[in-house]
């Protein structure tokens, strides 16, 4: 009985004019476009300099600032207010004001004031750009202090950061494994929900309900094809990650498949719950948007989970995406083994259990 039903599902999916193309294109486009677009690296900080000192020191400092790849000098102004006007008109992102007597004060008093004004409409760009400029100026200050006093006496503590597992701090390494999770959620979790609601709307469901097909068999016949498609999509994801970004999992690919499967069981259960409560496409599409938005924003897909505020982390803890994204990043970047990931596995299994029990119970209630 199950065999006939699964056969029918596959026929319907492949016969659809749009669906197979979308199922293939979706992971491709997501993985190829999004990591480039959704990128927090700060490039092209437009800088306006107000050099009121015009000394050899100030020129040297400006030279150092420009030498940074991320900073472009686009304007030289004579007054701070004029430069500030440029920020207001969105002509520059950052203004650095070097005051009169900068060199003199620096040599005599060993201190001087430099003002950095940053446009923080785009918060990330503002913060990151300000930090770049600050670190360049600090470095310059240390060099100069050493030069003047002749003593190598930088500040007491020198902080050096080595980035483990993603040395270049490449944002794509952070995004690509997590985006695969998003694609899998949408395809394996929500397509079967659409499918079931579609049968309800067309009246096919009624015909199945008067037949000897039991509910578990019917649900399984809806889910199995999307489990298979989910695994295919993960495979496409691995290939795209490797071909386009040279990203290869440091850990075992089998670990990822195992987690993908467990995760798929959880999200397809979520889709089932939605399809039980919805009677029309319109309802299920709207519910899906609602959940997808929350799940994606709360699960640390774009922003690291640990840097979310505690209340948000508490909400995120109720999303299976949180754990699978964590697993994907760990296996891809750190090479974590299954034994390191057991806590996540148990949590995902708990989700599978709770979500699917809820799905079955809510399905029964309808009759």
């Amino acid at each position, binding site marked *: 009985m199950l065999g*006939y039903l699964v056969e029918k599902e596959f026929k*319907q999916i492949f016969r659809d004019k749009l669906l197979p193309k979308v199922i293939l294109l979706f992971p491709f486009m997501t993985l190829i476009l999004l990591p480039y677009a959704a990128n927090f690296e700060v490039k092209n900080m437009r800088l306006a300099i107000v050099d009121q000192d015009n000394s050899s020191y100030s020129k040297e400092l400006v030279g150092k600032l420009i030498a940074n790849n991320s900073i472009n000098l686009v304007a030289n102004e004579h007054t701070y207010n004029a430069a500030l006007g440029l920020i207001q008109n969105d002509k520059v992102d950052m203004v650095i004001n070097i005051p009169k007597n900068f060199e003199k004060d620096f040599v005599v008093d060993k201190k001087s004031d430099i003002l950095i004004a940053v446009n923080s409409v785009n918060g990330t760009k503002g913060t990151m750009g300000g930090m770049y400029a600050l670190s360049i100026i600090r470095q310059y200050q240390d060099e100069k202090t050493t030069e003047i006093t002749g003593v190598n006496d930088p500040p007491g503590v020198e902080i050096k950061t080595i980035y483990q597992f993603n040395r270049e701090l490449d944002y794509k390494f952070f995004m690509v494994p997590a985006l695969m999770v998003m694609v899998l959620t949408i395809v394996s979790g929500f397509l079967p929900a659409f499918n079931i609601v579609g049968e309800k709307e067309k*009246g096919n469901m*009624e*015909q199945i309900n*008067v037949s000897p097909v039991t509910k578990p068999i019917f649900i399984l016949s809806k889910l199995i094809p999307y489990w298979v498609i989910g695994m295919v999509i993960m495979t496409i994801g691995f290939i795209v990650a490797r071909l386009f970004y040279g990203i290869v999992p440091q850990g075992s690919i089998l670990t990822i498949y195992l987690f993908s499967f467990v995760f798929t069981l959880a999200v397809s259960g979520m889709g089932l719950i939605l399809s039980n409560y919805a009677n029309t496409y319109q309802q299920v599409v709207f519910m899906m948007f609602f959940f997808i938005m929350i799940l994606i924003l709360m699960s640390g897909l774009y922003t690291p989970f640990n840097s979310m505020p505690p209340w948000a982390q508490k909400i995120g803890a109720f999303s299976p995406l949180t754990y699978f994204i964590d697993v994907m990043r760990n296996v891809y970047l750190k090479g974590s083994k299954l034994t390191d990931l057991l806590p996540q596995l148990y949590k995902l299994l708990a989700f599978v259990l709770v979500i699917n029990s809820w799905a079955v119970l809510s399905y029964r209630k309808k*009759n």
Partner: protein
Amino acid sequence: MENVIVVNNLTKKFGHFTAVDNISFEVKKGEIFGFLGANGAGKTTVIRMLCGLSRPSAGNATVAGFDIRHQSEKIKANIGYMSQKFSLYEDLKVWENIKLFAGIYGMKKKDIALKTDILLEELGFQDEKQTLVSALPLGWKQKLAFSVAIFHNPKVVFLDEPTGGVDPVVRRQFWELIYKTAEKGITVFVTTHYMDEAEYCDRVSIMVDGRIEALETPKALKEKFASNSIDDIFYQLARNAKRTDD
């Protein structure tokens, strides 16, 4: 003749609303049983209970010898069902729909293939075997849906307004199919709004406001109400209805 459907004091309430009010009747094997009633009279609710889709509030019934409260899965394996809403898969071909539903009812692959060809020939559908169902005209779809509903040789087939929206020629053909089915010993339980169709039935029941107000052969019905058209009788009974719609 043995009774295939036995209904005793069946009642269904939705809150304070009594959709089906304490009805009793029997349907014999191989009989064509016309189940008439205005919109909202409670026909569909009765069919849903007999098919095991809905639990009765009181009373009981057996279909093909199985109790509708406790053996609904067994009932489902022994009935066929065709609703007013076309419910074959539009994006499957004719033979694929037949194969799917035959498979669901546990028929063997070999039998399915063999019987499919016989059926298509009977219907004159040989050339449409590979056609997507969505491409068939409505009348053909209804005939196909009916044939699929009896393909697994059920004991009873429930037809819920099977000829709605179908032209008179196809309606006539459809009733020929119903007769052939009854001759094979399959009981036909049919609802309709066409009173000429009621004349084709062995026995007719007329439901008003959740109760069965008349149950006779078409001939006896006409004698009892001293009228020569079922249309008239239906109108006499139904205009007393308090309910107007579903």
